[in-house]
């Protein structure tokens, strides 16, 4: 089927589906380039529906970089919702790109982002709807190369068999290498195998087929290493695979596609800083996105200005893992006030530290009254805060919320995390008590209008974090803790939001699993599992039987404290942070010792030694990893 046929059938089926503009393309700033005269054709696929996928910043960044290259084009692909899928199947329409309505299978390369684990079955479903074999080993010369990326890839093994290559780390420069390799392939007509060897030579690229895991009889991993006998073309196969980074943040997108349809984050988003110096021990992003790199204030302001002229957005989000740690935050807020004050632009500054200065910052950017203010204390007792390495004095939290309510924010949203094996009932009960204490502050300022929304998630010991050795709480213990919260955290003005344990456990199994999970994921998908991130679609039974049929006990991945010397499925992926550093951090957590901000003292996580050459080549003011005196 070609794009003309698809375009001819769509007007017949679109009137019958919900939100048809998910499937039409044609939005402001979309890029349609001439197919025949552009040699490198890339589909960027987010494995969920348009409404979710259009808000993904990573793909928006790649879209703009690729389409700026004369030799390449990028088009967007999202999954259809079930009504549209039925209609497409009835008409024989394969998964297609929004811009030129080409079948996904016509592209040279399909980039699929895997930002979180509950999209894994959707990625398989997308390949199925595109008519592309699910496993890399089953694809032939004329199938597109299937390349994955995103944070899920920091443990690449569960999805390894479905991808020809996985991009570990940051894509802004890696994508240019990919374009070059595709262009060469099309010019030279070299084989798929030769091209994948070339891919394996790109910094940050992992080609799973060239590596083989070996197991001990107890099921733990002996090693994952390059396959030696695959010939001389294999000599360049790197080990370990070092994640890709950009030494300085490249210019941000300034002409993003503006959806007509309402999407989850319908706004201009700009990254002000990448990386984090805080070292919260549960936080994967804080470890895998090191080193810290800041975008200059001038570039932020001018990019927002340009993007607003190009999009007309009424809202801007300034993104980072910890906005308060952006070294010129006060200057940035002042500059935004000067430039955009009075233009009725809404500016959101999430991820702030819990201190009254944060309230001043948000107040300075505020364009309307009321609304909510979000804080993430994560834990409610000093002992748990020490374990997580997120120390905040209770008094400081209360002073901060007092300031928030007194300036007429009516709702304080609090994010907490339960599920550490050392967490006691008293620690959990303290969460409810803290929420009530916050509400009491609100009542003092606003009376009964004050509200507290507590979002309580469950800790997953993620790869490349100090908690990676840890067992997860069992389903029963999680349920007991959640029941306690339901009993204690209730009443007028209080709202509690809990993640169902089955959802968390599946995410944990997929986050911590090894290559043997490929069979489980494929079986679950065959049994109908997809849209696992949607609570009304999630099918725990399909997953349960997929594990059983594959003879894999999910508790092997989540229920076991791992010994200090166990090889993790992701150990051949080097994110620049050393395993012995993570182990020291883990042991410190067990002793209740906290670590400070690494802007003040270097703890030797390894990032600086991994990327020292890159850092030394940068001018003084742009160097990542703050210069610190030896402690």
């Amino acid at each position, binding site marked *: 089927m070609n794009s003309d046929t698809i375009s001819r059938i769509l007007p017949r089926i679109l009137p019958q589906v919900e939100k048809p503009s998910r499937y039409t393309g044609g939005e*402001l700033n979309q890029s349609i380039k001439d197919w025949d005269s552009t040699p490198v054709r890339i589909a960027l696929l987010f494995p969920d529906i348009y409404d979710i996928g259009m808000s993904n910043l990573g793909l928006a960044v790649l879209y703009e970089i690729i389409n700026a290259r004369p030799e390449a084009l990028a088009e967007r692909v999202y999954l259809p919702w079930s009504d549209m899928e039925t209609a497409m199947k009835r008409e024989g329409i394969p998964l297609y790109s929004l811009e030129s309505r080409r079948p996904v299978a016509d592209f040279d390369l399909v980039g699929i982002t895997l930002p979180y684990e509950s999209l894994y079955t959707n990625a398989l479903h997308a390949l199925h709807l595109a008519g592309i074999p699910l496993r890399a080993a089953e694809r032939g010369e004329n199938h597109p190369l299937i390349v994955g990326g995103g944070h899920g890839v920091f443990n690449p093994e569960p999805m390894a068999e479905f991808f020809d290559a996985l991009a570990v780390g940051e894509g802004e420069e890696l994508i240019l290498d990919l374009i070059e390799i595709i262009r060469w392939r099309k010019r030279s007509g070299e084989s798929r195998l030769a091209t994948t060897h070339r891919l394996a030579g790109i910094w940050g690229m992992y080609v799973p087929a060239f590596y083989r895991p070996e197991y001990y009889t107890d099921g733990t991993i002996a090693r994952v290493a390059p396959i030696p006998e695959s010939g001389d073309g294999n000599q360049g196969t790197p080990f370990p695979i070092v994640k890709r980074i950009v030494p300085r943040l490249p210019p941000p997108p300034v002409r993003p596609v503006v959806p*007509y349809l309402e999407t989850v984050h319908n706004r201009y988003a700009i990254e002000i800083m990448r990386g984090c110096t805080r070292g919260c021990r549960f936080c994967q992003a804080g470890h895998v996105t090191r080193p810290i790199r800041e975008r200059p204030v001038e570039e932020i302001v001018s990019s927002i200005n340009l993007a607003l002229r190009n999009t007309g957005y009424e809202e801007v989000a300034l993104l980072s893992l910890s906005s308060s740690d952006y070294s010129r935050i006060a200057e940035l807020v002042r500059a935004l006030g000067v430039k955009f004050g009075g233009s009725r632009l809404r500016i959101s500054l999430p991820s702030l530290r819990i201190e009254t200065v944060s309230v001043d910052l948000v107040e300075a950017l505020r364009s309307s009254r009321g609304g909510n203010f979000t804080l993430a204390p994560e834990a409610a007792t000093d002992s748990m805060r020490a374990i997580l390495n997120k120390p905040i004095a209770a008094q400081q939290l209360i002073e901060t919320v007092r300031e928030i309510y007194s300036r007429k924010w009516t709702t304080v949203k609090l994010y907490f995390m339960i599920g550490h094996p050392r967490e006691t009932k008293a620690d959990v009960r303290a969460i409810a008590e803290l929420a009530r204490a916050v509400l009491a502050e609100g009542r003092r300022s606003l009376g009964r209008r004050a509200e507290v929304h507590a979002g309580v998630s469950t800790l997953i010991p993620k790869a490349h974090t100090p908690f990676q050795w840890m067992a997860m709480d069992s389903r029963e213990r999680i349920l007991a803790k959640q029941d306690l919260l339901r009993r204690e955290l209730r009443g007028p003005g209080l709202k509690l939001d809990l993640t169902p344990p089955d959802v968390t456990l599946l995410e944990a199994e997929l986050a911590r699993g090894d290559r043997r999970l490929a069979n489980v994921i494929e079986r679950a998908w065959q049994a109908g599992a997809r849209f696992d991130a949607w609570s009304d679609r999630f099918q725990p039974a399909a997953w349960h039987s997929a594990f059983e049929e594959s003879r894999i006990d999910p508790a092997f991945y989540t229920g076991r404290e791992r010994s200090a010397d166990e090889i993790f499925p992701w150990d051949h992926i080097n994110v620049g942070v050393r395993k012995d550093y993570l182990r020291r951090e883990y042991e410190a957590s067990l002793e209740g010792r906290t670590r400070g901000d690494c802007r003040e003292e270097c703890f030797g996580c390894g990032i600086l030694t991994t990327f020292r050459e890159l850092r030394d080549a940068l001018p003084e003011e742009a160097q990542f990893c703050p210069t610190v005196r030896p402690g």
Partner: protein
Amino acid sequence: MNRYKYRILFSKTEAMRFTGHLDLFRAWERLLRRAQVPLAYSSGYHPHPKIQIGAALPLGVTGDNELVDIETAEECGVDALTRQIAEAVPPGVSDIRVTALPENYPGLEKLVVAGDYFTVPLEGAWPADLPQKIESLLASANLLRERRGKAYDLRPRILSLALDGNQLQMRLRLEPDATGRPDEVLSALGMESLPVLARRERLVLRESEGKMIGSEVLG
């Protein structure tokens, strides 16, 4: 505070055929921000820009002469405003024509009374018995139907209905609580599953002294 009122005539075309009313509103807000039009805002905790779109177009229907009223905080020259907006239109909005209105001019909700719709089958021709069906529909005094669980009479909402070649023409009422929809008429004619292409050629406005005009003359 001074307020200046402008009426903008535009076409909603193919790229926005499936864009709904609320989404069209947001597209206009962004269009006017890109065009740097000094919009006036409502007062209160959550100020809204003063933008009013004439009678909502059903999903899947394009419009040749659609209307939107805006208010600005500064006076804008009609020519400059036309140019600014035309340069900032997204795909799916075209043919911008602007007129200045007196400050107290009635809003579109008080003026729009009907819309003229033209419908053709997506493929092929209408069923051969369509003329008879139209005749008997027009002859009936009532057409009791249900929409979103509410019973209503479609018949008084159909002001005219005729077949001209392959074009089914209908003038339907567009008043608060009395809006006729082309898909409801098709359904009443027994053609609810037939794929069609529909466009609204004009809005019909009741101007001063009860005179009726088509929106296309406002440009």
